[in-house]
């Protein structure tokens, strides 16, 4: 009731803010809105004063995309990256208070751009950037003692509970080697074969982020386990199992600390 009353009494303020937001985000401002504005200093027109906020809007969202997509920025180079950002920002409003959350749709947006055909890996690289950003912000989980994992032998129908700071990444093209070059100059980048699929485990241990290569089989098993399948049911579902793959996966699970609980 109190909130309704407050909202009703805020009509002029809301209308002002809607007009202002339109002017900044959509470059559109009604004349009656402009008529109420006195621009700062020696600026001649209200639109000139609004430009300070319009440009700031693009700068801040571009900075956010730059921070969230470092690898993509490196691969595209400044010109293409900034052009893509401007286009993306025009089409995608920021709806979160935290700038770090801006750009989740950026990988898909890049996929839909026609002029990036010479970089077929760019969408996968952008997805990796976003995955890395996500894990960077995660709190370090408390891992189960490695010795506890031995219980799986006696209880194969147990479920493994994964830590929050764990991501399984798979992509059609190999992008991790490209991403690792992101702090280098583009001209110095060596030729990298990106044409094979890639399967990676990203995890935090002692507050540091690690990335580990997986085989396709290991990736599939981990994904199923993370979805809540029991270990025995995952193995039952697989038609052909490479024993070595499974043994190695057990070692990975034991050493990476990605499991927090056995249920």
């Amino acid at each position, binding site marked *: 009731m109190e909130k309704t009353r407050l*909202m009703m009494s805020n009509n002029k303020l809301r209308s*002002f*803010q809607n007009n202002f*937001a339109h002017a900044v985000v959509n470059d559109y401002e009604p004349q009656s809105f402009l008529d109420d504005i006195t*621009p700062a200093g020696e600026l001649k027109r209200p639109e000139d004063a609004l430009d300070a*906020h319009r440009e700031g809007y693009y700068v801040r969202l571009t900075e956010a995309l730059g921070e969230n997509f470092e690898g993509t920025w490196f691969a595209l180079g400044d010109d293409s990256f900034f052009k893509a950002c401007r286009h993306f920002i025009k089409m995608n409003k920021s*709806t979160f208070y935290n*700038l770090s959350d801006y750009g989740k749709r950026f990988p898909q947006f890049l996929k839909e751009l026609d002029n990036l055909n010479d970089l077929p890996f760019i969408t996968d690289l952008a997805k990796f950037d976003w995955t890395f950003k996500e894990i960077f912000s995660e709190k370090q989980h408390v891992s189960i003692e490695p010795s506890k994992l031995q219980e799986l032998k006696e209880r194969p129908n147990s479920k493994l509970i994964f830590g929050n700071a764990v991501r399984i990444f798979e992509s059609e093209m190999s992008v991790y080697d490209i991403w690792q070059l992101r702090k280098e100059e583009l001209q110095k980048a060596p030729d990298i074969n990106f044409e094979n699929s890639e399967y990676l485990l990203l995890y935090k241990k002692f*507050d540091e982020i690690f990335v580990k290569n997986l085989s396709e089989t290991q990736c599939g098993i981990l994904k199923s386990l993370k979805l809540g399948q029991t270990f025995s049911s995952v193995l039952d579902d697989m038609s052909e199992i490479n024993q070595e793959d499974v043994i190695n996966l057990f070692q990975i699970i034991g050493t990476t600390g990605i499991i927090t609980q056995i249920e």
Partner: protein
Amino acid sequence: MNKSFNKKCKPGVGLRPTHFPYLETNPKLKVDWFEAVSENYMDSFGRPRIMLQKLREDYPIALHGVSMNLLNPDGLDDNYLKNLKALVDEIDPFVVSDHLCWTGIRPSNIHDLLPFPFTKEALETVVNNIDHAQNVLGRTMLIENVSTYMSFGQSEIPEWDFLNEAVKRTDANILLDVNNIYVSAINHKYDPYKYLDAIPPNLVKQIHFAGYSDMGDFLFDTHSKPVYPEVWDLFIRFIKKAPETPFMMEWDEDIPEFSVVEDEVLKAVAIWNRIHGKNEVNDE
């Protein structure tokens, strides 16, 4: 978590990620406290949050928000307040602050400190929102004046009266940005001392200073330069009246190495010593 002030002169500096590598070497600093931008830490548990926790072991921390959106006619974002409260409970800052502005209206967030007409309606809105934020956080907030690049015909109240009224009605306090006073005063062609002298010193619990950019047609609050003499003059006038107010330097663009920012703060310490006749540089 029990580090607090033990001196009357309280110089601080804005904590910026670009200085993390230097600060991780545990250098002997000449500033007494840090101000951290709340949003850079409240949603992330990565390296920045760990750095903030470590610094808190040795220094008082102020948490300074840029996204509370205090002029939001729809009320404040519950999720934002929840995350901020969690950070406040963890860090136990000596100050929690945000700006007298709005930052977006659903569904858009503009991520800027936006101006608004100083009307009675806007005053009711901000009073309700400050009140709500303080109730959720369980503590008094500081509200900061911002730089503006336009004014509005529908305004009914001078900015300084609006700010005073908003904090008096909510038992909040003021974070006085002397650079913002100067920028807005020149932009809107009024005397900055009229603003400064209208602010009751007892309501001010923190001071900001920074360097603006002269865009030719107007002044722009960029936090990208050393403090201008005209802004130091405002600081001098105020610190004479309220010597124990913590003060700090904001530097957010073209950020130089830490010692340069620290030297700028030491200019304020020298001013403080000159006025109050004590040598309070932190060299213990």
